[in-house]
């Protein structure tokens, strides 16, 4: 497949791809209504194409994308599970898509009911007492949760808690979100077993620490077996415990973060609740809190009184809004449909089969690739390409070669504590055959690395473009199309 010319290069003056509705009122010149100084004199260059040309352009672009609907996508930490088609149909009902956020509450009771039901079900799933559905993504949820923690301490008159402890294995969003709240980030070095080192934790805990941010299982896919002890240590020091829900898939329905002692959790509805990732979003990052933190939630939250659902703005200590309107409602619709479809038994199966798939892969892959923390894992595990270096091959080469075998590569070079990391998360929706095919391909590639490393270094060769020059993209920035350089 060759390059698809940009939509701008296909543009021809005089073409159009849509008919614009008109009300038939007498045509008036714009400058009768809007003073000349406001009227655009700068040219506007948007593409001009007929509808079939636009359809072909984007259809051809879509064919250059790898996606879950195309094949196996074991991108660690991202939970690339199958996205039910049912949810797409539901999410397009006009009663959901053509409602305005400021409609009177009595005219959107169905929408508010969905939000309320989802809040209630997420409470049961996580063991938390209250939820906000406002945050738009996981990182947005982290920011919300960490601001709640900041406000909680300040409300107690405790202004010295400026530090947040974050393990060195954590997602990059954790320190970034904390910093946006004005916290100083203190890194916790992981222990020899890849988990939180209690001695290290104790040495860093003091009355300046606002919270410990943790994901459990952690980014190595390992469960923090001493989580209750960790929670006690954190709470005894007057700090709170934050749960990064990126890895909730591993424990869904079987273990609740609230029971582990977490005070704040965020979830990623686009991951665990399968509301698709949409090339990077929209997602949703609801935040659940324990009772003592309710008053700090963003406004509004959805409540129920006298037989009606309503938006409750009455939280005087609220951190405020984190976005406009009520959050990513359509994503919530899909998440609720998913929860209802799976039911309690199905949600538990999600965790069980995702953990089974991961351990099966770990076991088989450990026969030919190093797995630095080779313990019973949860929903994902991290291998290392370190031993391939002696053949002149890096993890990125192995990843690129996987594309030639028809797979999306795993997450690579993360977490940072594993050299040449290869982070594999199969999810529960994949068949044993698919896992076997992937394992087989990976095994072959490891053999190729030894016998013919150029196969890896020159990969990929079966993709629409070959390996791309990222250095050049920075040295000669070209971030928009310009007519004059074609």
């Amino acid at each position, binding site marked *: 497949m060759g390059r698809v010319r940009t939509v701008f290069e296909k543009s021809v003056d005089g073409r159009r791809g849509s008919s614009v509705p008109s009300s038939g009122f007498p045509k008036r010149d714009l400058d009768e209504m809007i003073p000349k100084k406001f009227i655009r004199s700068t040219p506007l260059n948007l593409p001009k194409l007929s509808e079939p040309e636009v359809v072909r352009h984007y259809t051809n672009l879509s064919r250059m994308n790898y996606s879950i609907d195309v094949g196996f996508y074991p991108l660690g930490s991202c939970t690339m599970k199958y996205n039910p088609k049912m949810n797409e149909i539901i999410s397009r009902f006009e009663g959901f898509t053509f409602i305005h956020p400021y409609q009177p509450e009595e*005219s959107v009771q169905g929408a508010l009911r969905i939000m309320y039901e989802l809040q209630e079900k997420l409470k049961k799933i996580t063991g938390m007492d209250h939820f906000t559905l406002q945050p738009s993504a996981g990182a947005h949820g982290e920011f919300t949760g960490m601001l709640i923690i900041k406000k909680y301490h300040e409300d107690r008159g405790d202004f010295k808690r400026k530090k947040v402890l974050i393990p060195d294995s954590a997602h990059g969003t954790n320190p970034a979100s904390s*910093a946006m709240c004005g916290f100083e980030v203190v890194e916790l070095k992981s222990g020899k077993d890849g988990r939180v080192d209690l001695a290290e934790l104790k040495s860093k805990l003091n009355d300046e620490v606002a919270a410990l941010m943790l994901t459990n299982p952690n980014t190595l896919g390992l469960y923090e077996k001493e989580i209750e002890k960790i929670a006690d240590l954190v709470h005894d020091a007057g700090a709170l415990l934050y749960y990064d829900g990126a890895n909730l898939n591993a424990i869904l329905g079987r273990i609740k973060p609230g029971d582990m002692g977490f005070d704040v959790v965020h979830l990623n509805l686009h991951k665990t609740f399968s509301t698709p990732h949409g090339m990077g979003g929209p997602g949703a990052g609801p935040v659940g809190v324990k009772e003592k933190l309710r008053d700090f939630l963003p406004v509004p939250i959805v409540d129920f009184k006298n037989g009606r659902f309503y938006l409750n703005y009455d939280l005087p200590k609220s951190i405020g809004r984190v976005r406009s309107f009520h959050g990513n409602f359509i994503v919530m619709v899909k998440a609720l449909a998913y929860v209802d479809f799976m039911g309690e038994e199905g949600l538990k199966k999600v965790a069980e089969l995702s953990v089974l798939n991961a351990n099966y892969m770990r076991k088989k892959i450990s026969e030919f690739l190093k797995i630095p923390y080779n313990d019973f894992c949860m929903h994902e595990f991290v291998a290392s390409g370190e031993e391939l270096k002696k053949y002149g091959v890096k993890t990125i080469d192995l990843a690129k070669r996987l594309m030639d075998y028809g797979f999306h590569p795993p997450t690579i070079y993360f977490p940072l504590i594993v050299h040449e990391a290869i982070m594999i998360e199969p999810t529960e929706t994949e068949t044993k055959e698919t896992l076997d095919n992937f394992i087989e391909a990976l095994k072959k590639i490891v053999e190729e690395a030894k016998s013919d490393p150029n196969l890896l270094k020159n990969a990929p060769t079966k993709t629409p473009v070959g390996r791309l020059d990222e250095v050049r993209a920075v040295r000669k920035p070209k971030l928009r199309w310009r007519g004059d350089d074609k």
Partner: protein
Amino acid sequence: MGDEQSYRSYIPHTDEEIKTMLDEIGVSSIDELFELATGKKGTAILKLDRGMNEWEILKKFEKLADENMDFHFGAIFMGGGIYNHFIPSALLEIANRGEFLTAYTPYQPEISQGTLQALFEYQTMICELTGMEVSNSSMYDGASALAEAVLMGYRLNQKKKVIISKTVHPEYRDVVKTYSQGLGIRIREINYDEGSGMVNFNELFESMDDETSSVVLQYPNFFGVLEDIERIGKKVKEKGNVILIVVSNPIALSILEPPGSFGADIVVGEGQPLGNTPNFGGPGFGFFATREKFLRKMPGRLIGETVDTSGNTGYVMTFQTREQHIRREKATSNICSNHAHNAVMAAIYLSLLGSDGLRKVAENSVINAHYLLERIENAGYNRKFDSPFFNEFAVECHNLDKLNRELLKNRILGPLDLGKFYPELRGVGLFCATELTRSDDIEALIEVMKGMK
């Protein structure tokens, strides 16, 4: 009720396969596997219902959708940040292809060229509309995009006072306050002029001092009024080292001089009007554009053009060293997931409409809004502010609550009560028209309004 095991549609394992896999791992059961991995026995009880089958789900949600009053083809006079524009069928059909919906962030560019090129084209279109040099590939919404712009202003000049006009969307201002609290950024809100509905120039100019990091305006503003960005822009530039941030409506920018021409340093806004349904307010997306010299201080993902090993053109995520996965606590933002799918919908929308089509949407919105105002004034109502406007305007209504209830009975979604956000404007309705506002809807509205006089 229900299906014993609906979930098996998505979870493919047979009992035999589970057994084979457990044997391979060397454990006897999944419970044992969990015990070994977590150190804990047993499982929680959630008290959730058993799963429903697909037909039951469709039925349940169909009913929930029916409990909402939707306005696809209905009479709607409400805007305030979310607008009812026509969405071409081709857009929905292409955007919902699984190749777009079920891909993630384009970490592996060789198999993500579709996403990358579509977003590269999107960035170009946003630059065209805003008159700016670089655009990122989307934010969550207009409000968070504005908050990020304010934080970027702080990164650029290290000053901690932000001046925001009260004519900026009230919820956007709330979000700016939320985002600012952690970093100690102070917000100074500037009143609007009661006659014109524009920001009070004198108060704005007087509040600018050496501490000022940025000035935030909306164009057209929350009241629909066209702010004189040119005049304010000049003053801001005279001051020097103050970042001018403009919130805008992308459809309006097809016929309005773009903020880039008036010296704006950052232009943000809600992208929903571009091919995204109202969705009860989300998801839409935020757009974010700035000047090339500020590129390295920008939040969000950027797509750039480059070449592959054979010299073929291709696209990659670029300037990633700004981002959280590399820079961690020193990143320009914590944003990771964004609203790429909504941005691609906007790109498809703009490709279908083209410059002429988009201008027509904007022009028809302006014509309809001005006609609507005429009809309302003829019915004996007075406009609140007297400045030029785009597609929204404020009207003094005596008993707006009652009017809106009466309208709703007739399946008409009346104006937004500005009293919701401005206590002093109780009973003032913010009316909106788009290219979809029909004559018979206007007449139905006028009839109810006349009856309320």
